[in-house]
Protein backbone atom coordinates (compact mmCIF):
# COMPACT_ATOMS: atom_id res chain seq x y z
CA UNK A 1 0.00 0.00 0.00
CA UNK A 2 1.21 3.52 -0.88
CA UNK A 3 -0.01 6.87 0.42
CA UNK A 4 -0.26 10.38 -1.04
CA UNK A 5 0.15 13.69 0.77
CA UNK A 6 -3.57 14.20 0.08
CA UNK A 7 -4.41 11.23 2.33
CA UNK A 8 -5.26 8.79 -0.43
CA UNK A 9 -4.16 5.17 -0.30
CA UNK A 10 -3.13 3.35 -3.48
CA UNK A 11 -3.03 -0.39 -3.95
CA UNK A 12 -1.51 -1.71 -7.17
CA UNK A 13 -2.23 -5.10 -8.73
CA UNK A 14 -1.12 -5.83 -12.28
CA UNK A 15 -1.06 -2.22 -13.47
CA UNK A 16 -4.46 -1.45 -11.93
CA UNK A 17 -4.41 0.94 -8.95
CA UNK A 18 -7.29 1.02 -6.46
CA UNK A 19 -7.72 4.39 -4.71
CA UNK A 20 -9.43 5.34 -1.48
CA UNK A 21 -8.89 7.68 1.46
CA UNK A 22 -7.19 6.89 4.74
CA UNK A 23 -8.85 6.42 8.13
CA UNK A 24 -7.21 9.67 9.21
CA UNK A 25 -8.78 11.55 6.28
CA UNK A 26 -12.19 9.98 6.87
CA UNK A 27 -12.09 11.08 10.51
CA UNK A 28 -11.20 14.62 9.51
CA UNK A 29 -14.00 14.77 6.94
CA UNK A 30 -16.75 13.79 9.34
CA UNK A 31 -19.92 11.99 8.31
CA UNK A 32 -19.88 11.42 4.55
CA UNK A 33 -23.29 11.86 2.90
CA UNK A 34 -22.53 11.77 -0.83
CA UNK A 35 -19.71 10.72 -3.13
CA UNK A 36 -19.52 12.01 -6.71
CA UNK A 37 -17.48 9.48 -8.73
CA UNK A 38 -15.84 9.81 -12.15
CA UNK A 39 -17.09 8.11 -15.33
CA UNK A 40 -15.66 4.72 -16.18
CA UNK A 41 -13.44 5.18 -19.24
CA UNK A 42 -12.40 8.72 -18.33
CA UNK A 43 -8.79 9.59 -19.10
CA UNK A 44 -7.36 11.49 -16.13
CA UNK A 45 -4.16 13.34 -15.42
CA UNK A 46 -2.33 13.47 -12.13
CA UNK A 47 -3.82 16.28 -10.02
CA UNK A 48 -7.26 16.33 -11.71
CA UNK A 49 -10.15 16.67 -9.26
CA UNK A 50 -12.01 13.47 -10.04
CA UNK A 51 -14.00 12.62 -6.90
CA UNK A 52 -16.01 14.94 -4.67
CA UNK A 53 -16.82 13.80 -1.16
CA UNK A 54 -19.62 15.67 0.55
CA UNK A 55 -19.67 15.40 4.32
CA UNK A 56 -22.22 17.02 6.62
CA UNK A 57 -19.71 19.84 6.93
CA UNK A 58 -18.28 20.52 3.48
CA UNK A 59 -17.25 19.24 0.08
CA UNK A 60 -13.72 17.89 -0.47
CA UNK A 61 -11.94 16.86 -3.64
CA UNK A 62 -9.98 13.73 -4.34
CA UNK A 63 -7.24 14.18 -6.93
CA UNK A 64 -6.09 11.67 -9.50
CA UNK A 65 -2.80 10.40 -8.03
CA UNK A 66 -1.36 9.40 -11.43
CA UNK A 67 -2.06 9.62 -15.16
CA UNK A 68 -4.33 6.89 -16.46
CA UNK A 69 -7.81 5.65 -17.27
CA UNK A 70 -10.66 4.98 -14.84
CA UNK A 71 -11.62 1.34 -15.28
CA UNK A 72 -14.06 0.84 -12.40
CA UNK A 73 -15.86 2.94 -9.76
CA UNK A 74 -17.38 1.78 -6.49
CA UNK A 75 -21.09 2.05 -7.34
CA UNK A 76 -22.04 0.86 -3.84
CA UNK A 77 -21.01 4.27 -2.43
CA UNK A 78 -24.06 5.89 -4.04
CA UNK A 79 -26.36 4.00 -1.68
CA UNK A 80 -24.02 3.78 1.33
CA UNK A 81 -21.78 6.87 1.47
CA UNK A 82 -21.41 6.33 5.24
CA UNK A 83 -19.20 3.32 4.50
CA UNK A 84 -16.44 5.88 3.81
CA UNK A 85 -16.44 6.52 7.57
CA UNK A 86 -16.90 2.88 8.54
CA UNK A 87 -14.39 1.14 6.30
CA UNK A 88 -12.34 3.73 4.37
CA UNK A 89 -9.38 1.46 3.73
CA UNK A 90 -11.50 -1.54 2.71
CA UNK A 91 -15.05 -1.63 1.29
CA UNK A 92 -15.17 2.12 0.62
CA UNK A 93 -12.58 2.35 -2.17
CA UNK A 94 -13.50 5.01 -4.75
CA UNK A 95 -12.16 3.96 -8.14
CA UNK A 96 -9.71 1.73 -9.98
CA UNK A 97 -7.46 3.16 -12.64
CA UNK A 98 -5.18 1.67 -15.24
CA UNK A 99 -2.03 3.71 -14.81
CA UNK A 100 0.28 4.70 -17.63
CA UNK A 101 3.39 4.11 -15.58
CA UNK A 102 3.11 1.78 -12.58
CA UNK A 103 6.71 2.49 -11.60
CA UNK A 104 5.63 6.03 -10.61
CA UNK A 105 4.02 4.44 -7.55
CA UNK A 106 7.41 4.04 -5.94
CA UNK A 107 7.49 7.82 -5.50
CA UNK A 108 4.70 7.73 -2.88
CA UNK A 109 5.01 7.24 0.86
CA UNK A 110 4.88 3.85 2.50
CA UNK A 111 2.74 3.32 5.59
CA UNK A 112 5.46 4.26 8.07
CA UNK A 113 6.17 7.54 6.25
CA UNK A 114 2.46 8.34 6.00
CA UNK A 115 1.85 7.67 9.69
CA UNK A 116 4.76 9.91 10.49
CA UNK A 117 3.29 12.67 8.33
CA UNK A 118 -0.11 12.63 10.07
CA UNK A 119 1.55 12.36 13.45
Amino acid at each position, binding site marked *: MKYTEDHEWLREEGGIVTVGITKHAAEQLGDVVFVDLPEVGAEVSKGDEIVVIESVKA*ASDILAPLDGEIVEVNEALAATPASVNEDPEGAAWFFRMKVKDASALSGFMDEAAYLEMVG
Partner: protein
Amino acid sequence: MSALKRLRLHDLHERLGARFAPFAGYEMPVQYPAGVMKEHLHARAAAGLFDVSHMGQVALRAPGGYEEAATAFEALNPAAALGLSEGRQRYGLLTNEAGGIIDDLMFANRGDHLFVIVNAACKEGDLAHMRAHLPAAVQVEEIGGRALLALQGPAAEAALARLLPGAAAMRFMDVAVMEWEGAELWLSRSGYTGEDGFEISVPEDRAEAFAEALLAMEEVLPIGLGARDSLRLEAGLCLYGHDIDMETSPVEAGLDWAIQKARRTGGARAGGFPGAARIHRELEEGPARRRVGLRPEGRAPMREGTPLFAAAEGGEPVGAVTSGGFGPSLEGPMAMGYIPAALAEPGTPLWGEVRGKRLPATVSPLPFRPSTYKR
Protein backbone atom coordinates in the same frame (compact mmCIF):
# COMPACT_ATOMS: atom_id res chain seq x y z
CA MET B 1 -5.34 32.41 15.61
CA SER B 2 -4.04 34.71 18.35
CA ALA B 3 -6.81 37.23 17.72
CA LEU B 4 -9.50 34.62 18.35
CA LYS B 5 -11.40 34.90 21.60
CA ARG B 6 -11.88 31.84 23.75
CA LEU B 7 -15.09 30.85 25.44
CA ARG B 8 -15.07 30.71 29.22
CA LEU B 9 -15.89 26.98 28.90
CA HIS B 10 -13.05 26.32 26.41
CA ASP B 11 -11.28 23.88 28.74
CA LEU B 12 -14.48 21.92 29.29
CA HIS B 13 -14.99 21.63 25.52
CA GLU B 14 -11.40 20.46 25.18
CA ARG B 15 -11.93 17.79 27.84
CA LEU B 16 -15.05 16.69 25.99
CA GLY B 17 -12.92 16.14 22.88
CA ALA B 18 -14.20 19.06 20.82
CA ARG B 19 -12.71 20.04 17.50
CA PHE B 20 -12.54 23.84 17.24
CA ALA B 21 -12.91 26.29 14.38
CA PRO B 22 -13.04 30.07 14.17
CA PHE B 23 -16.52 31.58 14.02
CA ALA B 24 -17.42 35.26 14.50
CA GLY B 25 -14.06 35.93 16.15
CA TYR B 26 -14.33 33.04 18.61
CA GLU B 27 -12.67 29.68 18.76
CA MET B 28 -15.86 27.60 18.77
CA PRO B 29 -16.46 23.88 19.33
CA VAL B 30 -17.64 22.61 15.94
CA GLN B 31 -18.08 18.99 16.88
CA TYR B 32 -17.39 16.50 19.62
CA PRO B 33 -16.27 12.88 19.17
CA ALA B 34 -19.84 11.73 18.37
CA GLY B 35 -19.71 13.78 15.14
CA VAL B 36 -22.20 16.13 13.49
CA MET B 37 -24.65 13.44 12.36
CA LYS B 38 -25.00 11.72 15.76
CA GLU B 39 -25.05 15.04 17.62
CA HIS B 40 -27.85 16.30 15.39
CA LEU B 41 -29.93 13.15 15.81
CA HIS B 42 -29.31 13.16 19.56
CA ALA B 43 -30.67 16.69 19.91
CA ARG B 44 -33.81 15.56 18.04
CA ALA B 45 -34.19 12.39 20.12
CA ALA B 46 -33.09 13.44 23.64
CA ALA B 47 -31.28 16.64 24.65
CA GLY B 48 -28.26 18.56 23.43
CA LEU B 49 -26.22 21.18 25.28
CA PHE B 50 -24.81 24.04 23.17
CA ASP B 51 -22.38 26.73 24.30
CA VAL B 52 -23.51 29.93 22.61
CA SER B 53 -21.64 32.31 24.89
CA HIS B 54 -20.23 34.08 21.83
CA MET B 55 -23.63 35.75 21.37
CA GLY B 56 -24.22 39.22 22.78
CA GLN B 57 -26.35 39.84 25.85
CA VAL B 58 -27.52 43.43 26.10
CA ALA B 59 -29.78 45.31 28.52
CA LEU B 60 -31.65 48.46 27.50
CA ARG B 61 -32.52 50.50 30.57
CA ALA B 62 -34.39 53.79 30.84
CA PRO B 63 -35.70 55.94 33.70
CA GLY B 64 -39.24 55.11 32.56
CA GLY B 65 -38.53 51.36 32.81
CA TYR B 66 -39.50 48.82 30.18
CA GLU B 67 -42.11 51.10 28.55
CA GLU B 68 -39.60 53.81 27.80
CA ALA B 69 -36.94 51.36 26.61
CA ALA B 70 -39.50 49.56 24.41
CA THR B 71 -40.80 52.79 22.89
CA ALA B 72 -37.25 53.74 21.96
CA PHE B 73 -36.41 50.24 20.68
CA GLU B 74 -39.42 50.31 18.32
CA ALA B 75 -37.68 53.12 16.41
CA LEU B 76 -34.98 50.61 15.34
CA ASN B 77 -37.02 47.39 15.11
CA PRO B 78 -40.24 46.65 13.19
CA ALA B 79 -41.46 44.16 15.82
CA ALA B 80 -43.80 45.41 18.55
CA ALA B 81 -41.89 45.83 21.79
CA LEU B 82 -44.67 47.74 23.55
CA GLY B 83 -47.46 45.40 24.52
CA LEU B 84 -45.05 42.54 25.14
CA SER B 85 -45.97 41.24 28.60
CA GLU B 86 -43.45 41.04 31.38
CA GLY B 87 -41.74 37.64 31.28
CA ARG B 88 -42.24 37.20 27.52
CA GLN B 89 -39.78 37.20 24.65
CA ARG B 90 -40.15 38.03 20.97
CA TYR B 91 -38.09 37.70 17.77
CA GLY B 92 -37.03 41.07 16.40
CA LEU B 93 -34.85 42.73 13.79
CA LEU B 94 -32.67 45.78 13.47
CA THR B 95 -33.43 47.25 10.05
CA ASN B 96 -31.55 49.82 8.01
CA GLU B 97 -32.93 52.79 6.03
CA ALA B 98 -33.02 50.67 2.87
CA GLY B 99 -35.24 48.10 4.59
CA GLY B 100 -32.41 45.57 4.87
CA ILE B 101 -31.50 43.70 8.03
CA ILE B 102 -28.64 44.79 10.32
CA ASP B 103 -29.21 41.82 12.63
CA ASP B 104 -31.90 39.50 13.92
CA LEU B 105 -32.32 39.10 17.64
CA MET B 106 -34.46 38.00 20.57
CA PHE B 107 -35.77 40.59 23.01
CA ALA B 108 -37.64 40.18 26.27
CA ASN B 109 -39.59 42.23 28.76
CA ARG B 110 -37.63 41.67 31.94
CA GLY B 111 -39.85 44.00 34.00
CA ASP B 112 -37.55 46.93 34.65
CA HIS B 113 -35.56 46.61 31.43
CA LEU B 114 -35.53 45.25 27.91
CA PHE B 115 -33.12 42.35 27.42
CA VAL B 116 -31.70 41.57 23.98
CA ILE B 117 -29.67 38.66 22.61
CA VAL B 118 -27.83 39.42 19.37
CA ASN B 119 -25.61 37.50 16.96
CA ALA B 120 -21.92 37.23 17.81
CA ALA B 121 -20.69 38.54 14.47
CA CYS B 122 -22.98 41.59 14.70
CA LYS B 123 -22.51 42.33 18.40
CA GLU B 124 -20.12 45.31 18.12
CA GLY B 125 -22.05 46.85 15.24
CA ASP B 126 -25.39 46.42 17.00
CA LEU B 127 -24.10 48.07 20.17
CA ALA B 128 -22.73 51.02 18.19
CA HIS B 129 -25.96 51.29 16.19
CA MET B 130 -28.14 51.26 19.29
CA ARG B 131 -25.92 53.74 21.13
CA ALA B 132 -25.94 56.07 18.14
CA HIS B 133 -29.68 55.95 17.48
CA LEU B 134 -31.42 55.40 20.81
CA PRO B 135 -32.20 58.50 22.89
CA ALA B 136 -29.58 59.45 25.48
CA ALA B 137 -31.95 58.43 28.28
CA VAL B 138 -31.77 54.81 27.14
CA GLN B 139 -28.68 53.11 28.47
CA VAL B 140 -27.25 50.34 26.27
CA GLU B 141 -25.41 47.95 28.55
CA GLU B 142 -23.43 45.04 27.20
CA ILE B 143 -23.69 42.36 29.84
CA GLY B 144 -20.30 40.82 30.50
CA GLY B 145 -19.38 37.94 32.73
CA ARG B 146 -22.22 35.64 31.72
CA ALA B 147 -22.07 32.49 29.61
CA LEU B 148 -25.03 31.49 27.43
CA LEU B 149 -25.98 27.83 27.15
CA ALA B 150 -28.80 26.23 25.19
CA LEU B 151 -30.42 22.93 26.12
CA GLN B 152 -32.51 21.64 23.24
CA GLY B 153 -34.56 18.58 22.47
CA PRO B 154 -37.55 16.56 23.69
CA ALA B 155 -35.75 15.60 26.92
CA ALA B 156 -34.59 19.18 27.66
CA GLU B 157 -37.48 19.95 29.99
CA ALA B 158 -37.06 16.82 32.11
CA ALA B 159 -33.28 17.30 32.30
CA LEU B 160 -33.38 20.98 33.23
CA ALA B 161 -36.23 20.49 35.71
CA ARG B 162 -33.94 18.26 37.79
CA LEU B 163 -31.82 21.35 38.47
CA LEU B 164 -34.54 23.98 38.15
CA PRO B 165 -37.98 22.51 38.89
CA GLY B 166 -39.65 25.80 37.91
CA ALA B 167 -38.43 25.51 34.31
CA ALA B 168 -41.05 22.89 33.46
CA ALA B 169 -43.88 25.39 33.88
CA MET B 170 -42.45 27.82 31.30
CA ARG B 171 -44.07 27.99 27.87
CA PHE B 172 -42.43 28.75 24.50
CA MET B 173 -40.95 32.29 24.57
CA ASP B 174 -41.38 32.75 28.33
CA VAL B 175 -38.42 34.23 30.18
CA ALA B 176 -37.71 33.80 33.88
CA VAL B 177 -35.03 34.38 36.50
CA MET B 178 -34.23 31.35 38.67
CA GLU B 179 -31.66 30.49 41.26
CA TRP B 180 -29.36 27.48 41.05
CA GLU B 181 -27.03 26.86 43.99
CA GLY B 182 -26.88 30.56 44.73
CA ALA B 183 -26.30 31.62 41.10
CA GLU B 184 -28.85 33.80 39.30
CA LEU B 185 -29.84 32.23 35.98
CA TRP B 186 -31.80 33.96 33.24
CA LEU B 187 -33.88 31.49 31.26
CA SER B 188 -35.92 31.64 28.10
CA ARG B 189 -37.88 28.78 26.60
CA SER B 190 -36.59 29.10 23.07
CA GLY B 191 -33.76 28.01 20.82
CA TYR B 192 -32.39 27.61 17.32
CA THR B 193 -33.14 23.98 16.54
CA GLY B 194 -36.92 23.72 16.00
CA GLU B 195 -37.04 21.66 19.19
CA ASP B 196 -38.51 22.52 22.55
CA GLY B 197 -35.75 23.78 24.80
CA PHE B 198 -34.19 26.53 26.83
CA GLU B 199 -31.51 29.19 26.57
CA ILE B 200 -29.83 29.90 29.87
CA SER B 201 -27.62 32.84 30.82
CA VAL B 202 -25.29 31.77 33.63
CA PRO B 203 -22.70 33.76 35.61
CA GLU B 204 -19.35 32.77 34.09
CA ASP B 205 -17.86 31.55 37.34
CA ARG B 206 -20.69 29.02 37.71
CA ALA B 207 -21.14 28.10 34.05
CA GLU B 208 -18.81 25.12 34.07
CA ALA B 209 -20.45 23.56 37.14
CA PHE B 210 -23.88 24.13 35.63
CA ALA B 211 -22.88 22.65 32.26
CA GLU B 212 -21.27 19.65 33.99
CA ALA B 213 -24.43 19.06 36.03
CA LEU B 214 -26.42 18.84 32.79
CA LEU B 215 -23.81 16.77 30.95
CA ALA B 216 -23.80 14.26 33.81
CA MET B 217 -27.36 13.33 32.83
CA GLU B 218 -27.71 10.37 30.54
CA GLU B 219 -29.92 12.15 28.01
CA VAL B 220 -27.65 15.19 27.57
CA LEU B 221 -24.78 15.28 25.04
CA PRO B 222 -22.68 18.30 24.05
CA ILE B 223 -23.50 19.57 20.55
CA GLY B 224 -21.17 21.65 18.39
CA LEU B 225 -21.67 24.40 15.87
CA GLY B 226 -21.84 21.88 13.00
CA ALA B 227 -25.02 20.23 14.23
CA ARG B 228 -26.39 23.58 15.37
CA ASP B 229 -26.29 24.61 11.71
CA SER B 230 -28.00 21.49 10.34
CA LEU B 231 -30.63 21.64 13.11
CA ARG B 232 -31.51 25.27 12.41
CA LEU B 233 -31.60 24.68 8.67
CA GLU B 234 -34.04 21.78 9.03
CA ALA B 235 -36.10 24.12 11.23
CA GLY B 236 -36.09 26.72 8.40
CA LEU B 237 -34.37 29.33 10.59
CA CYS B 238 -32.23 32.08 9.06
CA LEU B 239 -28.52 32.44 9.73
CA TYR B 240 -27.51 36.10 9.72
CA GLY B 241 -24.91 36.95 7.08
CA HIS B 242 -26.11 34.06 4.92
CA ASP B 243 -29.92 33.92 4.64
CA ILE B 244 -30.46 37.51 5.72
CA ASP B 245 -28.21 40.54 5.44
CA MET B 246 -28.08 44.30 4.83
CA GLU B 247 -29.81 43.87 1.44
CA THR B 248 -32.56 41.34 2.21
CA SER B 249 -35.77 42.75 3.65
CA PRO B 250 -37.77 40.99 6.38
CA VAL B 251 -40.60 40.43 3.88
CA GLU B 252 -38.35 38.85 1.26
CA ALA B 253 -36.95 36.67 4.00
CA GLY B 254 -40.42 35.48 4.97
CA LEU B 255 -40.08 37.09 8.41
CA ASP B 256 -43.27 39.16 8.05
CA TRP B 257 -44.73 37.22 11.02
CA ALA B 258 -42.21 39.13 13.16
CA ILE B 259 -43.90 42.44 12.25
CA GLN B 260 -47.03 42.66 14.37
CA LYS B 261 -50.21 44.41 13.24
CA ALA B 262 -49.50 47.48 15.38
CA ARG B 263 -46.42 48.27 13.28
CA ARG B 264 -48.07 47.74 9.87
CA THR B 265 -49.97 50.26 7.79
CA GLY B 266 -53.12 51.25 9.71
CA GLY B 267 -51.71 49.89 12.98
CA ALA B 268 -51.59 51.87 16.24
CA ARG B 269 -47.83 52.44 15.87
CA ALA B 270 -47.45 51.94 12.14
CA GLY B 271 -43.95 52.47 10.73
CA GLY B 272 -41.46 54.58 12.59
CA PHE B 273 -38.65 52.08 12.05
CA PRO B 274 -35.81 52.29 9.50
CA GLY B 275 -36.83 51.10 6.05
CA ALA B 276 -40.56 51.22 6.85
CA ALA B 277 -41.42 52.54 3.36
CA ARG B 278 -39.96 49.48 1.59
CA ILE B 279 -41.11 47.02 4.22
CA HIS B 280 -44.71 48.33 4.22
CA ARG B 281 -44.79 48.34 0.44
CA GLU B 282 -43.58 44.75 0.28
CA LEU B 283 -46.07 43.69 2.95
CA GLU B 284 -48.88 45.13 0.85
CA GLU B 285 -47.75 44.38 -2.70
CA GLY B 286 -45.55 41.38 -2.10
CA PRO B 287 -41.77 41.33 -2.56
CA ALA B 288 -40.04 40.73 -5.90
CA ARG B 289 -38.10 37.78 -4.51
CA ARG B 290 -38.59 35.40 -1.63
CA ARG B 291 -36.60 33.08 0.57
CA VAL B 292 -37.70 29.51 -0.06
CA GLY B 293 -36.82 26.02 1.02
CA LEU B 294 -35.38 23.62 -1.56
CA ARG B 295 -35.18 19.86 -1.54
CA PRO B 296 -32.55 18.70 -4.05
CA GLU B 297 -33.25 15.34 -5.68
CA GLY B 298 -30.75 12.59 -5.00
CA ARG B 299 -28.10 12.99 -2.33
CA ALA B 300 -25.77 15.74 -3.55
CA PRO B 301 -26.03 18.79 -1.26
CA MET B 302 -26.44 22.23 -2.82
CA ARG B 303 -24.16 24.43 -0.74
CA GLU B 304 -24.26 28.19 -0.18
CA GLY B 305 -23.66 30.05 -3.43
CA THR B 306 -25.09 27.35 -5.71
CA PRO B 307 -26.73 29.22 -8.63
CA LEU B 308 -30.40 28.36 -9.21
CA PHE B 309 -32.04 28.08 -12.63
CA ALA B 310 -35.67 27.87 -13.78
CA ALA B 311 -34.84 25.32 -16.49
CA ALA B 312 -32.63 22.27 -16.95
CA GLU B 313 -30.74 24.03 -19.74
CA GLY B 314 -30.06 27.59 -20.82
CA GLY B 315 -31.07 30.90 -19.29
CA GLU B 316 -29.50 33.04 -16.60
CA PRO B 317 -29.58 32.12 -12.89
CA VAL B 318 -32.82 33.17 -11.15
CA GLY B 319 -31.28 33.11 -7.70
CA ALA B 320 -28.82 31.36 -5.43
CA VAL B 321 -28.63 29.12 -2.40
CA THR B 322 -27.89 31.01 0.84
CA SER B 323 -27.63 27.96 3.14
CA GLY B 324 -27.41 24.36 2.10
CA GLY B 325 -26.29 21.02 3.36
CA PHE B 326 -27.45 17.62 4.44
CA GLY B 327 -30.35 17.16 6.84
CA PRO B 328 -29.62 14.19 9.12
CA SER B 329 -33.29 13.97 10.20
CA LEU B 330 -34.49 14.44 6.61
CA GLU B 331 -31.94 11.85 5.46
CA GLY B 332 -31.30 14.00 2.44
CA PRO B 333 -30.02 17.34 1.22
CA MET B 334 -31.79 20.61 1.96
CA ALA B 335 -31.20 24.23 1.10
CA MET B 336 -32.64 27.72 1.35
CA GLY B 337 -32.23 30.50 -1.14
CA TYR B 338 -33.78 33.52 -2.81
CA ILE B 339 -35.75 33.29 -6.06
CA PRO B 340 -38.32 35.47 -7.88
CA ALA B 341 -41.68 35.46 -6.09
CA ALA B 342 -43.35 33.94 -9.18
CA LEU B 343 -41.26 30.77 -8.69
CA ALA B 344 -41.67 30.57 -4.92
CA GLU B 345 -44.75 28.31 -4.81
CA PRO B 346 -43.97 24.98 -3.08
CA GLY B 347 -43.66 22.23 -5.68
CA THR B 348 -42.05 24.47 -8.31
CA PRO B 349 -39.16 22.64 -10.00
CA LEU B 350 -35.77 24.40 -10.04
CA TRP B 351 -32.24 23.38 -10.91
CA GLY B 352 -29.09 24.05 -8.93
CA GLU B 353 -25.75 24.04 -10.71
CA VAL B 354 -23.34 21.83 -8.76
CA ARG B 355 -19.84 21.36 -10.24
CA GLY B 356 -21.05 22.36 -13.67
CA LYS B 357 -24.10 20.05 -13.68
CA ARG B 358 -27.66 21.23 -13.26
CA LEU B 359 -29.33 19.03 -10.66
CA PRO B 360 -33.08 19.10 -10.06
CA ALA B 361 -34.63 20.44 -6.84
CA THR B 362 -38.14 21.28 -5.69
CA VAL B 363 -39.33 24.37 -3.82
CA SER B 364 -40.39 23.11 -0.41
CA PRO B 365 -42.35 24.63 2.47
CA LEU B 366 -40.34 25.75 5.50
CA PRO B 367 -39.63 24.41 8.05
CA PHE B 368 -38.48 21.17 6.44
CA ARG B 369 -39.42 19.45 9.66
CA PRO B 370 -42.28 20.52 11.94
CA SER B 371 -41.14 22.36 15.05
CA THR B 372 -42.02 20.98 18.48
CA TYR B 373 -42.16 24.14 20.58
CA LYS B 374 -44.15 23.88 23.82
CA ARG B 375 -46.73 26.60 23.19
